[in-house]
Every structure is written in C-alpha cells, then in structure tokens.
C-alpha cells in the first residue's frame, strides 16, 4: 500500500467516524422495539392457529394403545359392536342349512355374544364384514365374504334373524367353509375391526367408516 493510498484510507475512516447519524424520520420510528400487545397478540394467534389445525387432525389425541390379544369368553367393545366369542367348532355337516337338508362338507362355526353398542340398527352382515379369520395349521385366511355360508342370530331355532338392535345382546353364529386342500383347522385367529360413525373426506354426510383393529383373538377349534 502506498503512502498516498494510506492517507486516502485514513481520510475516509475519519469521515466515517465524524459523519453525524441522521435523525430517524417518522417512518423509521415505527420500526422501534416491538410493542407488548403486538407480541402477545401474535403469540395468541400462533397458538390458536396451531390448535385449530391440530385438533381436527387428532394431533392432540392420545396415541392408540397396542392391539390387545384376547381369548375365548373375553369381551371387546368398539364404537359399533361389543363382541365375545364363546365357541369355535369344526364340523363336517352344514350346521345352518338354508333350504333343504344339511350339506356335507367342512365347516367352521363361530358363535359370539354380540351387543350393538351404537345408536342405530345393524345386521350380522355388518359384523361379518369387519371380522377377519385365519385358520391353522397352514395359516389360511378365510374370505369373509366368499367363504361365509351363513350368519344369523341364534333365536327360535331359525336362521332368518339377522338384525342387531341397539342395546340388545344377541348370540350370533357365523359359518364358513374350510377351503379345499387345507388341513383340518385346530386353531383360529380372529381379528375384529372397529368402525367410527361420522363424515369422511369424500362426503360431509355421516356413515360407518373403517376404524382400527379392535382386538385379536387366539382361539382353539373344538370338534
């Protein structure tokens, strides 16, 4: 650096130091320290926004517990049904013939005590639609629609009662065919899915919507 350049640099610094700071105009005075009411309102607004967004999304709800494993005779209550399986049997004669004589074959009959805990009439088909079954040995999943041959309320020795009225406890029987080529079942894993009544993103109108798994039952198959 030459002496001339150094002298010029010092002159500039001297000017910078000695230049007076201009008075803040009316515009700049508004950028002063943040006023308490603005800060408080902003915090309240931010909190309200977070709550408004997270509440409908279920963000503040308690985390769901693990799916319980239950046994014969234990009750699981959801939003639509309370179920208690009390008998699972493997039979080689149709236990619930629709018309005519019972048919030969291999069947799995499940009997449950069911209470409709909702405030609307349901049917046994509504329950079978949320019942998932897997037989062992072989870990074969039964088709809850195609393999079901009967589903009815056990009452008056008939097979035609299917309604489950709110608050009334009924005994229900489901019959499934055991798929050909599978070994005779000795155990059954039954899972029941819960349902929730309310609007969904496809419609504002309420309907029964799939919920989480209510319980898994590990059951022995009797003969």
């Amino acid at each position, binding site marked *: 650096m030459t002496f001339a350049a150094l002298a010029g640099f010092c002159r500039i610094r001297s000017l910078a130091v000695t230049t007076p700071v201009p008075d803040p105009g009316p515009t700049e005075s508004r950028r002063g320290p943040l006023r308490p*009411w603005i800060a*408080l309102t902003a915090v309240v607004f931010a909190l309200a926004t977070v709550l408004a967004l997270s509440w409908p999304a279920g963000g503040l709800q308690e985390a769901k517990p693990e799916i319980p494993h239950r046994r014969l005779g234990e009750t699981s209550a959801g939003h639509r049904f309370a179920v208690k399986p009390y008998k699972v049997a493997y039979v080689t004669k149709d236990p619930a013939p629709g018309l005519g004589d019972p048919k030969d074959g291999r069947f799995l009959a499940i009997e449950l005590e069911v209470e409709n805990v909702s*405030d*609307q009439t349901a049917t046994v088909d509504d329950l079978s639609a949320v019942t998932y079954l897997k037989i062992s040995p072989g870990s074969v999943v039964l088709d809850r629609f195609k393999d079901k041959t009967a589903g009815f309320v056990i009452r008056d020795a008939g097979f035609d009662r299917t309604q489950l009225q*709110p608050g009334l406890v009924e005994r229900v029987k489901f019959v499934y065919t055991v798929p050909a080529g599978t070994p005779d079942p000795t155990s059954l894993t039954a899972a029941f899915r819960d349902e929730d009544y309310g*609007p969904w993103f496809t419609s504002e109108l309420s309907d029964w919507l799939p919920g989480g798994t209510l319980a898994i039952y590990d059951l022995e198959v009797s003969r």
Partner: protein
Amino acid sequence: MRRAITGVLTAALLLAGIVAVRRATPDADAKYAPIASVGEMGEQVNTAAFQLRVDRVQLARSVRLEDAYGLLGQPKSTAGVWVVVWATVAATTEEVTVQGARLRTADGAEYLASSVSGTLDKTALAPGMPSYGPILFEVPPGRLAGAALEVTVHSVKSLDHLGPAAAVDLRLSGPYTKALIEQAPASLTVGPVRDL
C-alpha cells in the same frame, strides 16, 4: 398494557364468536335430513309421498304372525320387548313401501322395524288405497319411554335425503310405558295387513 388486554379480549371474543357460529350451523346430516311432517297418535299425517295415521301401540314378549289365510307362524322371541305399532298408510301419487319405519327413543337411538315379513312396512301401497297393519320393533324395555315413530320410504337412510317423512309421538310417558311393559303378554298374535 391496556392495548395488550384489549387485543387479547378482542381475539378471545372473535374466537368465541367463531365457535358459536360453528356450533349453531347445522351439520350435513341435519341439512339433508328427511323433511318431516309431525303429528300425534290418531291424527292423519300428510307427506308428499304417503299419509299415515298411528292407531295404537301394543307390547309383547313374543309374537306370532298370522297371514291373510289365517295361518299362524312360529313364535318369535326377542331379547327386549316387541313393540307393535298399528297404523294406516296410503300412498299419495305413486306406489310406495314405507320401509324406513324407525322407533326413535328418548336417548336418540334409532330402531329400524323388524325384518319379519308380512308387516305394513314391507307392503307395497297403491296410491289412494289405504292399508292397515302392524309394524314391529324390538326395543330394550328400559329405553321405550318417550319413543316416537319416524317413517320414510327407504330403509337405507342415505336414500331418504330431503325426502318425505312422518314423525308421530307415541305418547309413551314413563308411568304409562312401565304399566304397558308390566302388562305385556307372553305371546301376542299379530294379524295381517288389510286393505281398507
């Protein structure tokens, strides 16, 4: 500080207003609910699709249905109590079936009519030709007091949006209902639907 308090109060007031408006706004189910004509027992209730008059209510522990030929069906039991509502219904302009007959209890539960066949709610009604017959319900005895009958033309609720409906108070007061339950016969023979 005064401004801070004013700001917080204004925000709280606005929030309360939003919540109040939100709660006062009917939900979609209420907006699309059937349009009900309200009436009393013994009174004719007119809707766009049918006319209904509830004549009487009976209770029983089990029922036997009698068909048009006088043949008796098997006794039908229930986990609750049978409520037999005798009513007269006529279609107005075209054939209808009042499949959406429900008993609404005081706690808001809805009991769709029993699926037992041969009852009034399973009968096709020709326009201008009234039919008289029973509608059967299974209800827990403890929920019966204060129940009202609601009738639409579909058993599936989503098909009844903004459709015609009749609502009839069955005059089931607490003491009267209790007496009805105590006096309910073990078996009741229920006659068939008759054209009037």
